[in-house]
C-alpha cells in the first residue's frame, strides 16, 4: 500500500523517515483516540517536563527551517521577540494558496492534533498569551477537522487552563479567512486577523516578532513548521538533524504536480533528494507522462523562477537552489512536458498573481495586470515583437536589475542567483513577473512563433487621395 483513499495525493512509497505524516496510514488519523494511541501529546508532556528556555534551545539546535516559503529557522524567529514585552501571540499560517502547493491542507485534515500539539510547544517555549490558528477560507474540511480536534483537546485538558495540571495555560482560537492569496504574507495575515483588508504592512519593522498583532510581538509560523515540533521534542534535536543535511535538516512535504506519471505529495529527506529523484524516481513521480520529454519545471511554487532539465540533479536544498537562480518556496514542483505551450502556461500563473494583487503598490497593481494583458494578447496571436520587450520593461519596474534565472548551456546563459530587488511591499508583484521572465528568457522562440507578421500595405495616404 502506498497511497490512501482518505489522504488524496499522499504517497508513502519507500523507506523514508516520517516526521509529520506517520499517521496518514490510518483512516481515523484525525481523531483524538488515534492520536493518543500513536504517541500523541507525548511531545507536549516532554515539553512541560522541561523549562521554556530548554525547549526553545532544542528547537534552535534542530534548525527547523520555516516551511511556508521564506525558510527562516523557527527557533531564531521565536528569539526575535523583544525582551520583557508582553503579551506575545502566535498566529498559525494555514492560508496555503501558493500555486502548486498542497501539504498544509493535508496536515490539517489528516493530523490536526499534531498541529495543535506543535502550537502548544511553541506557546510554552516562547511564552505566548494566545494562539490564533488561521485557516484558509476555502478549506471547509480542514476547518471542520481542526474545530473538532480543538473541542476534543479542550475537553481532555490538553488546551486551556492549567494544561495537564501545570501552570501552563493557553487558548487556541480557530480563525478562518475568506479567500485572498496575499493573506499568506505574514503581515497581511495579521491585518486580516485584526478584521481588516489583507494588505501587507510597510516594512520596517521587518518582523512581526517585534510589532505584530495589535502592535504586540507576534510569531507567525507555517502549519508544516509547527507540525514538526511534537516529533522533535519527543526524539530530540540530534535525531532531527540526523535526517537531511546540516543546512537543511529534517524532512519536507513536497507536492509534485503537472505532467508526471504519478503526481503526489511526498515527505522527502531534506537537502539530499534531487529534482531528478522527485520527477523520475520509483518512490516518487516515476517519470514524465506518456514517456514524453521534460521541458521545464517550477521548483518552488508559482512564484519561483523556472528550471529546465539542466537543473535536474540539484538537490532540494535552499542555498543551492537559490544560487542556481530559483527558490524552494513552499515545496511545490509543477512539471511541464514537451507538449506544453510555454507562453500559455506562464499566463496561468501571471493571471493568478495579477488577480491576487491587493492593489496597494502601483508596480504590482498596474504592472501585474499589464503583464497579464500583454501576455494574453501574445498567447492569443495578436502580439507584436515590441510586446516581448515590453514585458521585460514592465518587469523591470517591479524588480529593477537582474531578475534571477536558471543557467542554460544551449542559450549560453549563466545562472542569476536569488534574491531580486523589488519596488513593492511584498512578493506578489515580483511573482507575477517570475513566470513571464523565466518563460521569455528560456523559451523566447516560442513567444516569437506566436507573433503574426503584419505586412505594411504598400500604398500611401496620398495615393488613396484622402485629401
Amino acid at each position, binding site marked *: 500500500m502506498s497511497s490512501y483513499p482518505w489522504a*488524496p495525493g499522499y504517497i508513502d512509497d519507500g523507506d523514508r523517515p516520517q516526521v509529520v505524516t506517520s499517521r496518514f496510514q490510518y483512516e481515523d488519523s484525525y481523531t483524538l483516540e488515534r492520536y493518543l494511541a500513536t504517541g500523541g501529546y507525548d511531545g507536549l508532556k516532554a515539553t512541560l517536563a522541561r523549562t*521554556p528556555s530548554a525547549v526553545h534551545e532544542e528547537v534552535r539546535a534542530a534548525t527547523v527551517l520555516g516551511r511556508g516559503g521564506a525558510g527562516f529557522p523557527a527557533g531564531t524567529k521565536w528569539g526575535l521577540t523583544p525582551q520583557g514585552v*508582553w*503579551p506575545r501571540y502566535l498566529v498559525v499560517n494555514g492560508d496555503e*494558496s501558493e*500555486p*502548486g*502547493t*498542497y501539504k*498544509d*491542507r493535508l496536515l490539517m485534515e489528516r493530523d490536526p492534533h499534531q498541529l495543535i500539539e506543535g502550537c502548544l510547544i511553541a506557546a510554552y517555549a516562547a*511564552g*505566548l*498569551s*494566545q494562539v490564533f490558528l488561521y485557516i*484558509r*477560507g*476555502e478549506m*471547509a*474540511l480542514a476547518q*471542520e477537522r481542526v*474545530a*473538532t480536534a480543538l*473541542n476534543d483537546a479542550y*475537553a481532555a*485538558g490538553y*488546551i*486551556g*487552563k492549567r494544561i495537564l495540571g*501545570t*501552570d501552563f*495555560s493557553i*487558548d487556541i*482560537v480557530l*480563525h*478562518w*479567512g*475568506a*479567500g485572498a*492569496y496575499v493573506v499568506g504574507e505574514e503581515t497581511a495575515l495579521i491585518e486580516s486577523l*485584526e*478584521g*481588516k483588508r489583507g*494588505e501587507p504592512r510597510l516594512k520596517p519593522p521587518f518582523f512581526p516578532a517585534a510589532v505584530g498583532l495589535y502592535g504586540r510581538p507576534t510569531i507567525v509560523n507555517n502549519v508544516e513548521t509547527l507540525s514538526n515540533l511534537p516529533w522533535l521534542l519527543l526524539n530530540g534535536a540530534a535525531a532531527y538533524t540526523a535526517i537531511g543535511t546540516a543546512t537543511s535538516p529534517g524532512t519536507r512535504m513536497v*507536492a509534485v*504536480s*503537472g*505532467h508526471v506519471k504519478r*503526481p503526489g*505529495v511526498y515527505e522527502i529527506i531534506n537537502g539530499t533528494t534531487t529534482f531528478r529523484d522527485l520527477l523520475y524516481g520509483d518512490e516518487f513521480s516515476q517519470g514524465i507522462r506518456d514517456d514524453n520529454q521534460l521541458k521545464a519545471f517550477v521548483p518552488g511554487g*508559482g512564484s519561483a523562477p523556472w528550471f529546465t532539465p539542466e537543473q535536474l540533479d540539484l538537490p532540494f536544498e535552499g542555498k543551492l537552489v537559490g544560487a542556481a537562480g530559483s527558490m524552494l518556496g513552499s515545496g*511545490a514542483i*509543477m512539471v511541464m512536458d514537451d507538449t506544453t505551450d510555454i507562453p*500559455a*502556461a506562464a499566463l*496561468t500563473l501571471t493571471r*493568478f498573481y495579477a*488577480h*491576487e494583487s*491587493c492593489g496597494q503598490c502601483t508596480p504590482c497593481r498596474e504592472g501585474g495586470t499589464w503583464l497579464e494583458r500583454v501576455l494574453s494578447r501574445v498567447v492569443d496571436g495578436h502580439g507584436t515583437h515590441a510586446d516581448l520587450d515590453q514585458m521585460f520593461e514592465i518587469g523591470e519596474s517591479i524588480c529593477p536589475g537582474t531578475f534571477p534565472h536558471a543557467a542554460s548551456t544551449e542559450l549560453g546563459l549563466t545562472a542569476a542567483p536569488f534574491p531580486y530587488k523589488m519596488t513593492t511591499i511584498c512578493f506578489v508583484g515580483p511573482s507575477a513577473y517570475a513566470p513571464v521572465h523565466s518563460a521569455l528568457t528560456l523559451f523566447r522562440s516560442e513567444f516569437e512563433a506566436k507573433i503574426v507578421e503584419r505586412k505594411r500595405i504598400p500604398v500611401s495616404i496620398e495615393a488613396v487621395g484622402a485629401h
Partner: protein
Amino acid sequence: MSRLNEANVIVAKEIIGRYPKARSATIPLLHLSQQQNGYVTNEAMAHIAELVGATSAEILGTATFYEMFKFEPVGKYLLNICGTMSCALLGAEELIHHAEQKLGVKVGGTSADGKVTLERAECQAACTEAPCLQANYRFRYRMTTDQLDTFIDDLVAGRLDGEIPPHGTVARVRQHIPADKGVGAVPPTDVTEAPAWIAAQEATK
C-alpha cells in the same frame, strides 16, 4: 430581516469573546451572516459593525477584499473550477468550457434554475489531483467532463445535500471553548507581565 437573527447573535457574541479585540471577529461574523442569508447584505454589515465596534463602511471595506463574500444572491451551489497552472496543464479550460455549456452560462453567471453559479477559481491546494473543483468548498478531484456532468446532475437534484450544504455554510463544526476550560481573551493593554510558566522559570534563575 437580514440582520443576524437572535440565535446567530448568540453565536456572534461567543466568537467575539474569543478575541482580545472585537474587530478581529469581523471575517468570522461576515461568514456567519452569509450562512444565514446566502450572501452578505448591507443590513448585516451594519449589524456586524455595531457588534464589533466599527463603522459599516469599515466592515464593507474588509468584506469587499475577500473573494468568498458575495454581495448579491448567488446559486445554491457555487461551482469553483480551478484554472491555475497544474489544473490548466491537465485540462481545466476544457472543464470550464464544458461547465459553461452544461449550465448555459458564462463564467460568473448563475444557471436559469438559480441552482448553480459558475466561477473560475484560483489555486485550491489540490494540485496533485488536477484538474480539481469545489462546490460550496467541497472538493472533487481529477475531474473529467463526464464526471462533471454527473456531478452537476447530482448536485442540482439534491443528491449530494448530505455532503454539500447550501452556499454560505463553510465549516459545519464550530469551535466551542467551555467557560470552565478556557483561559479567556484579555485586551492586549491589560497584559503587562510574563505568563505564569515563564515567570516561574525566571524566579528559579
